[in-house]
């Protein structure tokens, strides 16, 4: 492996920017129903945040702090999406029939809750999982190769 210079500025800015991006991504997810955004874009954005972490700190440190298996995340996301759809069977309506309503919640006040939101959450998680799985597989492979060749 080539020696890594001390990317102090990168790391410091990353610490701040990652949260901004993550917040933006979650905002995209939640506001998607009424404003541009949604699970797909939010997911891609979230993956961008993780990616930035990996770029600045390297694979091993991030993996230590965030022990997430992104392959599982794909499965979890798909499962949420399918279960949301299948939930409509309980009420005797066709697959993927959504409903929504307005509720008074503590802290948030009057809020719209829609089952479509849950479905979007499934999309969100799947997209993060997919993007990260693809990029990490390629990246890890490259590092393993280099380690292997170094031996």
């Amino acid at each position, binding site marked *: 492996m080539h020696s890594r210079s001390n990317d102090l500025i990168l790391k410091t800015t990353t610490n701040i920017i990652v949260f901004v991006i993550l917040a933006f991504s979650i905002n995209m997810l939640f506001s*998607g*129903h*009424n*404003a*541009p*955004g*949604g*699970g*797909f*874009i939010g997911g*891609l*954005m979230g993956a*961008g945040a993780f990616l930035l972490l990996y770029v600045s700190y390297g694979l091993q440190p991030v993996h230590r702090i965030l022990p997430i298996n992104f*392959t599982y995340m*794909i*499965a979890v*996301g*798909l499962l949420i*999406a*399918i279960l949301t*759809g299948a939930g409509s069977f309980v009420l005797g309506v066709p*697959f*993927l029939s*959504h409903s*929504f309503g307005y509720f008074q919640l503590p802290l948030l006040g009057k809020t*719209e809750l*829609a089952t*479509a939101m849950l*479905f*979007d959450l*499934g*999309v969100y998680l*799947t*997209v993060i*999982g*997919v*993007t990260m*799985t*693809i*990029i990490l*597989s*390629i990246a890890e*492979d490259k590092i393993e190769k280099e380690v292997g060749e170094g031996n």
Partner: protein
Amino acid sequence: MLHIYILIPFLAALLIGLAAKKVDRIHTGWFVLPVPTVLFILFISKLPTLAEGKIVQSIANWIPSLDIQLSFYLDGLSMLFSLLITGIGTLVVLYSIFYLSKREQLVHFYVYLLLFMGSMLGVVLSDNVFVLYTFWEFTSISSFLLIGFWFYRERSTYGAQKSMLVTVFGGLSMLGALILLSITAETNSIREMIANRSDIIESDLFIPILILLLIGAFTKSAQFPFHSWLPDAMEAPTPVSAYLHSATMVKAGIYLVARFSLIFSGTDVFFIIVSGVGLITLCLGSILASRQTDLKGILAYSTISQLGMIMTMLGFGTGIATLAAIFHIFNHATFKGSLFMIAGIVDHETGTRDIRRLGGLYTFMPISATLAFFGAFSMAGFPLPIFNGFLSKEMFFDSSLKLEQTSGFAGTFAEWIPWLAVIGSIFTFVYSMYLVFGTFTGKAKLDQLEKKPHEAPIGMLISPIILIGFVVLIGLLPNLINESLLAPAVASVTGDFALTHLAFWHGFDNTPLHLSLIVVAVGTILALTLKRWQPIFNRVPGKFSTDRVYQSIVNGLLSFSSKFTKFYMTGSLRLYTSIILVFLVVSTSIFIYVTDGFKIAFDDLAPVTWPEVLVGFVMAVAAIATIWMTQRIAAIIVIGVVGYGLSLLFVFFRAPDLALTQLIVETITVALFLLCFAHLPKLKKSDKKSSEKLVDFVIAASTGALLTVVAISSHSSKYFDSISKYFVDNSYKLGGGDNIVNVILVDFRGLDTLFEIAVLGLAALGIYAMIKYRDKGDMNH
């Protein structure tokens, strides 16, 4: 009743297959023997009914919606064939018990044989044409299995394959004829077709029907030019040759022609084709038989020639000719069956069938030799009243002299027939004499034989003795079977029930006898001087060998298809893409041209703004520039310009979700491309010739132009209002959201999204698996 008759052999085949392995001390054939015997007796018991002019029939439903019924009926013609099938079947099974040793795979043999017997009965008893066709193909398949019985021999599999190809070719063309027939006559029943005869003859489809049907009959019955499978089918065990290739299956074509002759007979086309092909086959078969050296080869060509003779007589279509044909079907089955069995005995007892190594066997095998003399002289039509072959041959001459076709070409043709008949008969005489004298007289060449010849066991001789018994009996008393068997058969071929008295003696003063005497005289001379003729024989017919034609067709087809496949399946993706694109362009532009589909309308266009034009221009420049990039990375980045331009266009067209997604996706794609392409070797400078480049350019330009045309046309011809108004109106009401795109994605059309994320998941797993496990299969790693 008839259903059960046909079912019996199939059931027996099943039982034999299941039970015979249990009992291995007794030859399997003994269990099979009762089946044809019982059937034979059952059929015999129906003879009085038929003699009264009645028929036996039974019907069961099979596919009522298609008007396909298992309807079987037994008239004179079916009866003759049923008796041949079961009678000779009995004798062949008996013979095979002694012929095949217990070391052979007897269960296979008898299962195939019983299947064949059942399907052959089905062919001759069916009234429904499609049931007939079903059984017809069953006979082809079971015959294929029987010919390839010794599947470890190359010649056997070759013969089996050849007979399969030829007979199935004919069977399929027959199916075509039957379908046309059933459309024309509006019925599937043969008898109702005969009733609608005039409809069929007057229809435009008459000639195609006739030709297709005759191809089926000619291939099955080994008529010129489809005869070449029969000699190769001689690789089958001899009982099979005796049964299938002399008495039964090869007569299925004859049966077909006879069965349908009530429809076709009397027309000039039928007369010319059937008699013409029959005569060619008769002459060619008899000439080719004289140059064979294998006993079964001689018999195979002799069968071809005799079948040609029967076919000729069926083509004549007159009463006397039909009687002669029917009579000869019976006679041929008796003497040819016995001759095959004797050839098998000779093979079995000496170890060879090569006539050049045989000779002088008379002293060793007197009974077989005597039987062979009778068989061969009957086959040659020697004018003595103890040979049934003589009677039918003389009736053949007689009928050929009494043809009444006077119109045009058919009339001219009819005048030539007696001469061709005489030529064919002369060579028939030659090969018959060659067969019997070459094998049984002369000097014995014991040193060339594998074992010392001796008489066959009595069990093997029973069957040929019975058959030769018929030869002599019918020769002496031809009227014995006339009233009961032949007359009903003739009645069902010609339609009128008229008894003709058969007599073997018409006095000296008649032409057929003179012709027979000529045949004997010339034939004797030729047979005696055969050695001198043989070189000419060997040279001349080789040129006309249909074997070579068959082989070149098969080889030609194979090499043509492999060349054709190699021509366009080069493995080059570039070529495939070109083919796909050219097909797209050609088919779509033809469609647009034919339907006059190109439209252009200017009334529904949005105003063009400068930013859009600018972005579009940049995208076009970037797209074109990609082609000239010499480095992959440069090409990827230039492609990226197109992607970002697109997302800008989305912004202009007020699609924020699309713009966002496009922006991120484009970034990730470019990043992934950069990641992967960094490992690839450098772009080589294109070594394509300029002509290839030109072709590529034309294809690409025409595809682009076509898609533009399609896009313009489809935009200009909107037949319905868009459904988007519904989404705009109901997005908040039903979906609870203001972002219509998102509501459509997760609510109105959520199923699409569900499967799109499933696609993404699969893609990720695919990449993961490809990267992680790519070395696992490599054993050296």
